């Protein structure tokens, strides 16, 4: 795996996290490919230890760049109460594994996320964690997220809402 590309893609993911954590959502959108497919299937507890425990037909996110843009625009209104006043959020991205995809300049990128959030002056912080499977591609020299599938590790989500992006 070319170390240079490795660094660029890693930087992209960190940059993305930074923009989200600093509420620069519009800048974040610019990191997304126009053809983006962004999904978050449900996790269940399934029979047997080999069983597939992801339910593909029901999700927490079933998004396109267009639908994400709508979500972002909403967060810039004056009445998106869930983030006004703004909670603090932090995306810890780790275990980044990159391998070439089918197309040139296209890579399969797997990463782990641990997202923590602190709301108002509450003592309890919230967290959600799991795995992300991305397709990241370079278009005219710019790296973009073209596909993201987010796998939460809990069958019951314990954040009070999913107003954040993952």
């Amino acid at each position, binding site marked *: 795996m070319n170390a240079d590309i490795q660094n660029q893609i890693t930087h992209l993911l960190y940059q993305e996290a930074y923009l989200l954590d600093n509420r620069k959502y519009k800048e974040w959108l610019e990191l997304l490919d126009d053809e983006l497919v962004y999904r978050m299937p449900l996790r269940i507890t399934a*029979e047997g230890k080999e069983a597939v425990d992801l339910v593909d037909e029901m999700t927490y996110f079933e998004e396109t760049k267009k639908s994400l843009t709508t979500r972002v625009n*909403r967060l810039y209104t004056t009445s998106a109460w869930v983030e006004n006043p703004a909670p603090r959020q932090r995306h810890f991205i780790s275990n980044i594994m990159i391998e070439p995809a089918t197309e040139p300049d296209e890579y399969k990128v797997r990463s782990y996320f641990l997202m923590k959030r602190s709301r108002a002056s509450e003592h309890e912080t919230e967290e959600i964690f799991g795995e992300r499977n991305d397709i990241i591609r370079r278009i005219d020299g710019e790296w973009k997220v073209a596909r993201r599938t987010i796998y939460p590790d809990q069958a019951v989500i314990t954040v*009070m809402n999913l107003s954040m992006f993952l």
Partner: protein
Amino acid sequence: MFKKTLDENAFRKLKEKMEEGLLPQWVITDPDIYELERVKIFGRTWQFLAHESELSESGCYVTRWMVDDPVLLVKNPSGEFKAFLNSCTHRGPRLCTEDRGKKKTFTCPYHGWSFNLNGDLIGIVAGNKVYGEEMCKKDWALREIPRIGIYQGMIFACLDPNAIPLEDYLGDMKWYMDILLGRSDGGMEVRGVPQRWVTKANWKATAENFMADPYHVQTTHRSTVEMGISPEDPLYAGYGHQVVLNNGHGINVITSATGKARAPYQGTPESMWPMFNRNLSPEQAEILSKTTVFVGGMYPNLSFVSPIHGTEGHLHNYLNFRLWRPIGPEKVEVWCWFMIDKAAPEEYKEAAYKSYIGSFGPSGTLEQDDTEIWARMVEASKGLMARDKELNYNSVANYLMGLHRVEPDESFPGPGHAYPTTYLDAIARSMHEYWLELISKDMIKEENE
């Protein structure tokens, strides 16, 4: 385990205030009230378990909760639904920890006892070698949830063996369930599995918010107005009727300023309309044709919304049921089902599902803002002023909207008390009255125990 004597004085004050349309703030998250609710409301009323489409064949099962009681719901070989306490009868461990699956036999991992789909104890390891006449297998079948019932594919259960039948409990709500669930051939189907998350809220607040409070839409969800998705008119969610039903149930039939729906039959494909009319009575069909949004619920903790989404030409409608499972006085585990007409075109189903994801559930742009409100209600409910049972600080919530002023509209074609606006606290008052009736029942008896 220790006898407790109730503070009748606090209850008397509570009753007085409620008759004035006021609800003392202390009851929202008070731990003793919660304990009463657990026993006297959730121990005696019918609660939703699943929709029949979640268990397609014999052997299919799902595990659910009736507050703190783990339930194993199975479809037995004869196709009946059976609800058992999900606890091995030998020593009590949770028998099945999976969310769903298909099996013939449930085997306990502790000592290996096994049970069939009728709950019969069919296997005891080394049975006759270790047990003799002291043990009669029949006595050790899985314990059934005392009552189970089904209406329009909705499966309910009740922990009280002496509860009235489900259909009586639902009463006039059945008439509206026919519209929501019975309009299409083959009825509705659940997509995948329910979304589940834990939110900071008291179950009464979430149930009321959904069943009884279209008035909150104009502010809580004002971002949709800023986004140009909802009308500027602050009354937009107030047009139509709020229908108060028996046993704390209720439904809001929201039309629009014109008195008609934004689109006939909630923007469903015109091809489906004749089917609706065939499956519904003329009155039901008329309401369906004129309604933009149905939102309401079955007491205590099941709510639903059936909205229109999308823009001209790409309108769609779906049915979302949600169960508010109390997890203590300050937490709710929300279960959210996306349901759609089995008979609808596939691409329509797909589009409807996508708008659901964008609007409701933990990631829904509407519901996100509700969760902030629910949390704030909990956060302001623990202080001495809010918790004061003497009401010295006059800490009472306001349910005055329309009290003794707005009268039922006799011309409304559906059953129940239908008030000619949905910006009204009539359902909320009726929920809370039923709540008080339930928790104060047998209070005296208890005292003399």
